[in-house]
């Protein structure tokens, strides 16, 4: 039976188990959308392609499956690029399918032509421009395989429209085997390296585990917990690693880095062994490079060999999948008491406990997030935007299980959280999904309110409304003499009315005592709700280690009572 290219593609997507495709149609993908119309794949129409891309990404982060998004050629495809780059930086499995002009028009500046394989080359793990209908099955197989194995990442498939209308009467390949001689991810750690690592751990007097997003990707949170408990190892996580280790555990040091806890940063500065697992020594973590873990031997467990010794020289590299490596490592780990080290950490935890001044009439952002954490008992899926809202969430929500934080770490994309929450809600229909937003970021993809209303997705948006691009304002306050250049959002709309105009519910919180009842009321409704929280305009995120500095330079004003 002859099939069109569009049918071949959609059949392949069904074959790959795709449930949802997020996207917006256009000339170059008309044939594709026509086939989707009566396919088992549910098409989610967003209001901007960036929203489609982030939704596919959020779906992938919440479920661990490959997220799929679609856009037409030219502007549709270029609108996807921020979402593709966001997924690339955080190693998220995603396949983006873009329409392209007819093959014979490629390179002629045709209507709605953009060289999307050229544009996305540095922000994809791989990309394809399909030139022959018979390549579609192979390309789809390879794209899903590449996106979801090794260090995951986005793959773009660019499909000229005339291929989608052309017909092919088979035979269609039956197996889904891929043959990629240049792509062989390594999953098993070298046994010798694992033994050396175990020995270093057993001999360490002051070890710290520094766990990143790799814990979530490899699904090794249980092995990590076992490792920490067996070896009596304190654990700090990056933003991407939040949820990979229970923050209510006594071995947890919570998040490290620029806005991490001072006790995590002190522990890393003082440790004699740093066990990095699925983390990449990003500058937001290390601060001043040559003073990062200056006394420590460094073990680095990572699936990406290029991450090893990229910014910091590693002593004991172990390349492979973290879950396999930890499983091999566990039996070699001895129970060691390390009384002094744990005493020291306990003291730091007491001295540098995260806290804030909860006085005043206006609700404090930290308080709002703590309340969300309490009400949801850490079980919700929390998306964030970027800025102060994101850092307060990382600090004050107690994350205890993987895939419960969905946040743009590497690229720091404002406007990510809300559409990502849409994807997460579709992927986890039974969970409470909340986007903790900033007033600036929310307006970057506010149009997706139409999407949540249309698909009846009960996503909650809690806006930390400070009337500013707050994080940038904070830097201006501290480093630019309060010259608030381009950061005051003076003419913010009434977010409650905006929500209502789209057909969602809107609530407002203006006083501390309204926080709990309003949140409870909103979370009880199985409908989209926007909650506009008026917080102080000049609230800051502390602690704050300025870029390129060390924990000794941390700005801690207001973090804890009178300490300096």
């Amino acid at each position, binding site marked *: 039976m002859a099939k069109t290219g569009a049918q071949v593609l959609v059949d392949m997507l069904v074959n790959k188990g795709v449930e949802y495709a997020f996207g917006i149609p256009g000339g170059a993908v008309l044939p594709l959308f026509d086939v989707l119309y009566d396919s088992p794949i549910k098409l989610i129409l967003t209001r901007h392609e960036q929203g489609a891309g982030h939704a596919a990404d959020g779906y992938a982060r919440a479920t661990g499956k490959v997220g799929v998004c679609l856009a037409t050629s030219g502007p549709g495809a270029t609108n996807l690029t921020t979402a593709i780059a966001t997924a690339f930086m955080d190693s998220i499995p995603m396949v983006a399918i873009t329409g392209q002009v007819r093959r014979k028009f490629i390179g002629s500046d045709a209507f709605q032509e953009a060289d999307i*394989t*050229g544009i996305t*080359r*540095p922000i994809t*793990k*791989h990309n394809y*421009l399909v*030139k022959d209908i018979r390549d579609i099955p192979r390309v789809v197989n390879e794209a899903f395989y*590449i996106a979801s194995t090794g260090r995951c990442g986005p793959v773009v498939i660019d499909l000229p429209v005339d291929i989608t209308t052309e017909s092919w009467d088979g035979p269609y390949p039956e197996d889904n085997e891929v043959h*990629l*001689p*240049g*792509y062989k991810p390594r999953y098993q750690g070298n046994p010798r390296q694992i033994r050396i690592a175990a020995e270093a751990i057993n001999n360490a007097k002051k070890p710290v585990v520094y766990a990143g997003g790799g814990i979530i990707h490899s699904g090794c949170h249980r092995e990590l917990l076992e490792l920490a408990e067996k070896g009596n190892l304190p654990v700090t996580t990056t933003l991407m690693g939040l949820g990979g280790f229970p923050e209510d555990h006594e071995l947890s040091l919570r998040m490290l880095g620029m806005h991490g806890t001072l006790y995590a940063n002190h522990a890393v500065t003082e440790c004699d062994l740093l066990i990095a697992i699925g983390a990449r020594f990003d500058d937001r973590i290390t601060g001043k490079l040559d003073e990062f873990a200056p006394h420590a031997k460094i073990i680095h467990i990572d699936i*990406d*060999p*290029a991450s*090893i*010794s*990229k910014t910091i*020289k590693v002593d004991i590299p172990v390349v492979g999948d973290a879950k396999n490596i930890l499983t091999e490592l566990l039996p070699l780990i001895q129970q060691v008491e390390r009384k002094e080290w744990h005493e020291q950490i306990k003291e730091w935890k007491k001295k540098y406990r995260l806290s804030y001044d909860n006085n005043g009439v206006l609700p404090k952002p930290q308080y709002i997030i703590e309340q969300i954490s309490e009400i949801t008992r850490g079980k919700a899926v929390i998306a964030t935007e970027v800025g102060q809202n994101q850092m307060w969430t990382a600090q004050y929500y107690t994350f205890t299980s993987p895939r419960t934080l969905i946040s743009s770490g590497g690229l720091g994309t404002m406007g990510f959280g809300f559409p990502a929450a849409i994807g997460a809600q579709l992927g986890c229909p039974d969970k409470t999904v909340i986007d903790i937003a900033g007033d600036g970021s929310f307006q970057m993809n506010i149009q997706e309110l139409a999407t949540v209303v249309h698909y009846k997705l009960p996503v909650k948006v809690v806006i930390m409304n400070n009337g500013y691009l707050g994080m940038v304002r904070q830097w201006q306050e501290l480093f630019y003499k309060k010259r608030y250049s381009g950061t005051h959002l003076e003419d913010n709309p009434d977010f409650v009315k905006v929500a209502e105009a789209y057909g969602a519910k809107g609530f407002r919180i203006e006083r501390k005592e309204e926080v709990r009842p309003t949140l409870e009321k909103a979370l009880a409704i199985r409908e989209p709700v926007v909650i506009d929280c008026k917080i102080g305009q000049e609230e800051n995120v502390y602690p704050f280690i300025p870029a390129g500095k060390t924990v000794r330079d941390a700005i801690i004003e207001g973090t804890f009572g009178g300490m300096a």
Partner: protein
Amino acid sequence: MVQGKYNFPVPCNLLIMRHVITALVENKVGVLARIAGLFSSRGFNIDSLSVGETESPELSRLTVVVRGDDSTIEQVRKQLGKVIDVIKVIDLTDTPYVERDLMLVKVNVPPGRRGEILEMVDIFRGKIIDVGQKDMIIELSGTEDKLEAMIKLLHTYGIKEMARTGQIAMARGTK
């Protein structure tokens, strides 16, 4: 430790060294763009890059001459290895290998000096492949040093045009 430029010791691993790296890549559209893009986006400094067919039609061999300290070169190798279309990456610098660069130079021939130029080309084992009224084209292949030496000498006559392929290289013997 090695003696550095200003006469104080520099740790070996921080020395900027010239490395010849070859990679076997799939002979597909866009591979060269991928690799060239990788070098520019990661800020690697390359002296030359050349690509051509190999013994098998579906593979190309790429040779790149790059300068950097140990950790930069390690990143070059690893980042190249991450490109899906790259099958194998070898840094030839630590093994016995041969390298060749091919050059065409159009050089001025001042009246009465043809003989000395011919003699020099002969010494370098180059070839004259075109002779004009006032100039000639010389073909020369060899190592970078040899080509540089020839260029230096030809400057005295005046070089009108020059084209080079960049290095290609191969390990000696069997492995």
